[in-house]
């Protein structure tokens, strides 16, 4: 009798959870984190990239013949990433693992070891001149297109070494991609030059735009840092101080990144009398067919959004 009634309880849970899950899957929110297989037709070598930005860059160099699997997927947050069992398998099967380095993937060492993988690990930031971010090297190197050019070269060499048979393909893919990146770099510079000089201040919540600011002549003001998800919820006093600092800088807009509390950012912007610019992409690409589906689109989108918001 008691058993039958317990079964009744579980039936309720079953119904509730399946309704909610079904609704969620119908909305297509089910599987953006986790492994994201981009291509698998004529696979000669298997390559893993730790995040979606790196994955896109590697894919451009590798071309259709290379199967690239990314660990932190599109719209994913590297800060809260927790590897799943399937990621172990992915690493175990890989020939080459591309990682950003600079402590951007603190979870990778353990995962690599536990998977028993024998893949070669390639740290793409090895030839990049890093800047310092609170005492350590800032890992967000890709916001400077020049750094990405250096990354592409490292990737090209690694692929050639791992798969000499297809060396020519990799070299020519890289050459084409590098010229696209040069073009992108100029495009960003042109875009930024349209912004009045006094407005070239990025007020953000999270210090990811150091390389971007360095390269394209911006000042970064992390006035909003206490509103970042990595800080605890800001107090009323901190919020008031943020509002004060935004007003002091005199900028027309502030930038929320895809790692902040949107409601609070809106309240702060409203209070300070500035625009809250559309969200910039920082650590991950957006949806595949969206405005930031590739690395190049992401940089274009960020530059356009920044210049639009700051009166460019």
């Amino acid at each position, binding site marked *: 009798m*008691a058993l039958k*009634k*317990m079964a*009744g*309880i579980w039936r*309720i*849970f079953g119904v*509730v*959870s399946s309704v*909610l*899950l079904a*609704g*969620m899957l119908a*909305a297509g*929110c*089910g*599987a*953006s*984190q986790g492994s994201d297989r981009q291509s698998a037709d004529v696979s000669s070598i298997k390559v893993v990239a730790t995040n979606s930005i790196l994955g896109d860059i590697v894919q451009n160099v590798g071309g259709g013949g290379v199967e690239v699997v990314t660990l932190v*997927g599109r*719209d*994913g*947050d590297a*800060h*809260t990433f927790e590897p799943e069992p399937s990621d172990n398998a992915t690493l175990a099967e890989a020939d080459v693992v591309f990682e950003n380095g600079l402590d951007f993937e603190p979870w990778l060492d353990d995962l690599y070891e536990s998977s028993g993988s024998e893949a070669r690990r390639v740290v793409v930031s090895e030839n990049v001149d890093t800047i310092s971010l609170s005492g350590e090297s800032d890992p967000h190197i890709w916001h400077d297109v020049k750094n990405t050019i250096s990354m592409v070269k490292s990737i090209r060499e690694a692929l050639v070494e791992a798969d000499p048979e297809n060396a020519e393909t990799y070299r020519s893919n890289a050459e084409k991609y590098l010229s696209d990146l040069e073009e992108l770099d100029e495009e960003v510079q042109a875009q930024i030059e349209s912004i009045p000089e006094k407005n070239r201040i990025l007020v953000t919540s999270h210090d990811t735009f150091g390389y971007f600011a360095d390269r394209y002549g911006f000042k970064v003001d992390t006035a909003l840092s206490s509103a970042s*998800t990595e800080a*605890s*919820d*800001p*107090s*009323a*006093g*901190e*919020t*008031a101080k943020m*509002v004060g600092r935004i007003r002091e800088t005199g900028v027309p807009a502030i930038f929320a990144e*895809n*790692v*902040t*509390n*949107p*409601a*609070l*950012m*809106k*309240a*702060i912007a*409203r*209070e300070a009398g500035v625009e809250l610019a559309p969200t910039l992409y920082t650590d991950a690409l957006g949806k595949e067919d969206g405005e930031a589906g590739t690395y190049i689109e992401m940089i274009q989108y960020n530059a356009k959004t920044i210049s639009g918001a700051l009166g460019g």
Partner: protein
Amino acid sequence: MGWLLEPLQFSFMRTGLLAAVLVGVTCAVLGVYVVLRSMAFIGDALAHTVLPGLVAAYLLGLNLLGGAVVAGVATALGIGWLSRRGTVREDTAIGIAFTGMFALGVLLMSTADSFRDFSHMLFGNILGITRVDVVLIGVLAFVVLVVLFMFHKELELTSFDPAHAKAMGLSPDTVRYGLLILLSLTVVAGIQAVGVVLISALLITPAAAASLLTRSLPRMMAISAAIAVVSGIVGLYASYYLDVASGAAIVLACTTCFIVASAIRALRQNSAANAPEPLADER
């Protein structure tokens, strides 16, 4: 007086204070029933069970409050139904519903890209409340308080003598369902202010403090509401001047009021013990 007015120049403070007062009064008045009917555990459980509703609404791109109301009311009816059938003990039924629904919420969260949009559901976001939110909270508060006023006599009677109510044809179960629904609406409004984790403090602490100070129900409600309003204001000012988290500051202000109420009660009992007993108990 300047220090009193200074924070008010910020509209987020004015909106936050308004929300804190609205939520505080509603929680405090309803909380009196929660405390007198020993439903504290249910209040906490309801707060946790609206989580999957919030997350599902977010994932589906629907209004968060709407999702929370649906989940809250569904749980309220579910708990009422389970405990009415009397098959498992009520606290067991609540424990099952509470942990199951919270786990479902966490599971739904984990399918999303990150926790970033959910942290303020857990811990509240009173400074980020929009005017639309305040209007919604105001409507919820108004509905809850009006319903409480209209059905006060039934709520009161079923609280202390459900058998008498039933003998008059007034079903205590119906009243209980109604109260659970009001409770879930209140919890949803309160989550905006102090979050899932701390909302039950707003429901329980002011009412419990008031229950130490008076033996009259209307006075208990008034004192409870006053404690909640004062705590909301003091908490937000503390958050402003001491740079501490706002939701936690509000709750701790309530806790302080409770400690003060306990001290007052202890002092009164001491002085009463020295006076002659006014009423001899024959049993």
